[in-house]
């Protein structure tokens, strides 16, 4: 039982075609909180995209509980929460509709995230980054989801909101026995949150 990346190698198509990841191994068990640190451009986000199935590795595999990620149907058991929530929602859709795209939302989740009912009727440009990020979290927390990839999810939020969101995420992770991958540049934050930290160099 774990999320496993085995010998992942990946490079973006285009000029130069540099390898972003080269033979990377990573294992995340349920209940574990693995921090990813490293300078920008070293492939932290790319690794998340591979783990969540947004990109296909050039070689290597991603296994979820022993089964290749590609063989899962329906909602992906590995969900990613992005660094820039304003680019992760449809700008022409009201947020209530954006949420509905992912199916019905669990009861109590919106309240726990302090999402006010009026926000459901708004468009993404009418909400702040922190408010949008709460929607992205609500959208990602589906019943079948076992692993959550948090890519700098609170990097643009104020300290109190950051503390609130992490208190929420940690509580949910414990309740649902989720495995978390936490990407952050803030070493104090990683130290506070993670059970272990892996550096991408």
């Amino acid at each position, binding site marked *: 039982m774990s999320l496993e990346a085995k010998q992942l190698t990946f490079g973006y198509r285009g000029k130069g075609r540099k390898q972003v990841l080269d033979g990377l191994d990573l294992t995340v068990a349920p209940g574990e909180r693995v921090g990813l640190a490293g300078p920008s451009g070293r492939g932290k*986000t790319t690794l998340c995209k591979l783990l969540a199935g947004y990109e296909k590795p050039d070689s290597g595999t991603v296994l979820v509980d022993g089964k290749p990620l590609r063989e899962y149907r329906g909602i992906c058991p590995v969900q990613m929460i992005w660094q820039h929530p304003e680019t992760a929602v449809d700008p022409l859709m009201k947020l209530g509709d954006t949420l509905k795209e992912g199916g019905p939302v669990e009861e109590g989740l919106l309240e726990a995230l302090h999402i006010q009912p009026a926000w459901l009727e708004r468009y993404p440009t009418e909400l702040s980054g922190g408010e949008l990020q709460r929607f992205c979290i609500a959208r990602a927390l589906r019943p079948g989801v076992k692993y959550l990839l948090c890519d700098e999810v609170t990097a*643009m939020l*104020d300290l109190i909101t950051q503390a609130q969101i992490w208190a929420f995420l940690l509580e949910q992770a414990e309740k649902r026995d989720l495995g978390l991958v936490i990407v952050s540049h803030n*070493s104090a934050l990683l130290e506070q949150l993670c059970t272990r930290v892996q550096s991408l160099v």
Partner: protein
Amino acid sequence: MEPILQVQNLSISFTQYGRGARQVLLPVLRDLSLTIEPGQVVAVVGSSGSGKSLLAHGILNILPYNSHMAGEITFLGRPLTPKRAEQVRGREIVLVPQGVTYLDPLMKVGPQIRKGRRDQAARQVSRAVLERYGLGADTEECYPFELSGGMARRVLIATAAAETPRLVIADEPTPGLDARAAKRVLGHFRELADGGAGVLLITHDLELALSIAHRVAVFYAGETVEEADAADFTAGRLRHPYTKALWNALPQNGFVPILGAQPGPGEVGEGCPFAPRCPKGRPECLGPVPYREVDGGRVRCLYPEGGTA
């Protein structure tokens, strides 16, 4: 010395449509005052949705059409009228915007920095600024989608530094940068300040702000609740309960989340916007609260810490 920028009693509101054709005036920024001296880095720290970015957009006169601005802005001793703002923005006043979406997705990085100029001098400038922020010459040939989050942000900063600004407005310039790159970037802002420019650093990152700013103004729900010297934070000389809560929410200072959320625009009454969440809130906090001098800083609180009220 003449201050670079002086903002006095600035208020910004938006006209929105309520039910039917009825228009509603939504105040988002209230009674804001701020001064930036040459060589000074002034940080504006506040939570998301507190109106920090609007301050920047107000100075540059790039607010949307349905907004109204009241109050006075003086730039280099003369009033900053909409017409003058149009002339100086992008040259004497530059903005390092918040989102990576401010880059043109269909234009390579090099031409964006050069703003369409093709001469040799412009090429040299763009190459030099990219190098200054640790980006190679090959970055010029990239489209924005080919950049990582941190690289895109450095490109935004490079675009601003390619001019010789008197005032740099940096709107959340560091999220997504690793500690080393963030320090380097902030170092460059400090450099611009040491060269005589004023820097207005808008951020939610208190820690980072404290590492380079001389003065810090704390925003809450569209109001400045406290203005303090950077040294007041580590020395425990904070005046407003919200500033204290912010300090205690730092991961290394306890990571304490206080309950509740900042009230949205239009939900703020006359009194202190923090009163409902404040551990020391009293009924009279819902009445008018003056912004006054306490202990070398300014605070909008009836019962400030360390003050005799």
